[in-house]
């Protein structure tokens, strides 16, 4: 055998050029999303009873889970930015309020918070309405979806506040000095100079919170919300097939979290490329 350099090795070496590597790596894990989706579809096609029935039964729960996640997340970001700014505020009153908020709501289990908002908060609101003699509050009718969003936003807002605080603090002091030295107000400097840079820094940990949120919305099934978990439980109690039902529910959560994980890392990479 004569050892010669074959064109094949030349070809494989080309793939190792750093610039060529990146685009393939961005998409490398999409196959996992596809594989899980394929398993779900195959189960539905080849074993429609019970899998197709389960998916059809829980589909409105799936929609509720997604809506709850997305709507909550929008408000979580707003609360997170305000909370993060409050945590770094020089004004001692604002700093105190923001710190108390974060410390208190990080320290109570999310499930307990959701139960409190659903069962206790409406009663508190009604008795407060009676106290100040204000009928709209006294006759407050609880809305499970709104209260679930409130519970998720307040709890996750505390975590995300801390992420934003760290992100803002990671931007060098000279940036705000340069902005302020040109006559920008504190809020202008934050809006145009600090926050755009901080958002880039916090994107990975905030994206992680989004994935956590998808999974944690399953806790609202304990407070009369017909989300994916709740609908799964309803199907199971009607048909007594825990293995098939919970396997399918688990697969549906998995395909969502895998999909959004890919989406977030794609967004991150795109932002990094823009730089």
């Amino acid at each position: 055998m004569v050892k010669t350099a074959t064109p094949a090795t030349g070809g494989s070496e080309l793939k190792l050029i750093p610039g060529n590597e990146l685009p393939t790596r961005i998409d490398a894990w999409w196959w996992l999303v596809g594989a899980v989706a394929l398993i779900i579809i195959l189960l539905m096609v080849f074993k429609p009873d019970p899998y197709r029935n389960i998916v059809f039964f829980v589909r409105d729960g799936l929609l509720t889970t997604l809506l709850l996640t997305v709507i909550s997340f929008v408000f979580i970001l707003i609360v997170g930015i305000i909370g993060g700014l409050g945590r770094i505020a020089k004004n001692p009153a604002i700093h105190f309020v923001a710190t108390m908020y974060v410390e208190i709501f990080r320290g109570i289990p999310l499930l307990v918070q959701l139960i409190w908002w659903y069962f206790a908060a409406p009663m508190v609101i009604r008795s407060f309405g009676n106290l100040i003699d204000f009928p709209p509050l006294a006759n407050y009718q609880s809305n499970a979806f709104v209260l679930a969003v409130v519970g998720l936003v307040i709890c996750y807002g505390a975590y995300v506040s801390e992420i934003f605080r760290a992100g803002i603090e990671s931007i060098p002091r000279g940036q705000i000095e340069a902005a302020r030295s040109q006559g920008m107000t504190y809020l202008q400097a934050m809006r145009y100079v600090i926050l755009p840079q901080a958002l880039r820094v916090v994107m990975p940990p905030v994206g992680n919170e989004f994935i956590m949120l998808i999974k944690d919305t399953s806790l609202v099934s304990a407070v009369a919300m017909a989300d994916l978990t709740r609908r799964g439980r309803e199907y199971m109690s009607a048909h007594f097939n825990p293995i098939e039902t919970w396997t399918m529910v688990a697969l549906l959560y998995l395909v969502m979290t895998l999909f959004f994980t890919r989406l977030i890392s794609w967004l991150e990479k795109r932002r990094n490329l823009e730089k």
Partner: protein
Amino acid sequence: MAEAIIKIENVHKYFGQVHALDDVSLEIYKGEVVVILGPSGSGKSTLLRCINHLEVYNTGKITVDGIILKSAQNINLVRQEVGMVFQQFNLFPHLTVLDNVTLAQRVVRKRKPEEAEAIALNLLTKVGIEEKSQAYPLQLSGGQQQRVAIARALAMNPKIMLFDEPTSALDPEMIKEVLDVMLALAKEGMTMVVVSHEMGFARAAASRVIFMDEGRIVEQGQPDQLFDAPKEERTKIFLSKVLQI
């Protein structure tokens, strides 16, 4: 040279126990180029930063262009008239060179985007960097970044320019391109306060050189007089060390 454009009266500044500025009084007139030098920790940067209130002084009074620095509103008014260039450039890394120069014009001066851009391109041409207007700061060399920073400060049409060790973070071969821009600015009659050890620049452009040590103004005079015939012993020791290099 009637009324001083910057008037510093008996200013004291403490960082905890450290007496950073010890009863400093100084008047700077329109069109003057004042170079401040002194060993590190002598309070020269602190004094500069007090002029646009990036540092808050404890007692005394600073008047800039007739405005006494006190309330928050005043500070933003003063800062619009005072441009500042930093040792570390402090360009905004998420914005292009052009946007760096237009941002404060649009947000603070409320200029229209087209107007701000025209002014920015004009200034970038002046500092010799117009072809990089679409680049991002981190794609530029240190000298180029500092020239953009000067253009960014000039875009606000300041009456006074403050330079805080503008060449200290630069590679030697890039110092000249920045000093050339500063020299041109001085020739145009801009009022400048420069913290720097660049003797060449001081001799060529300064109307006055101030030597500071331990928070006090030790000596001041015209550059040739201060460099060649310093009166104070402390100044002589400092200059002998600096000039040896």
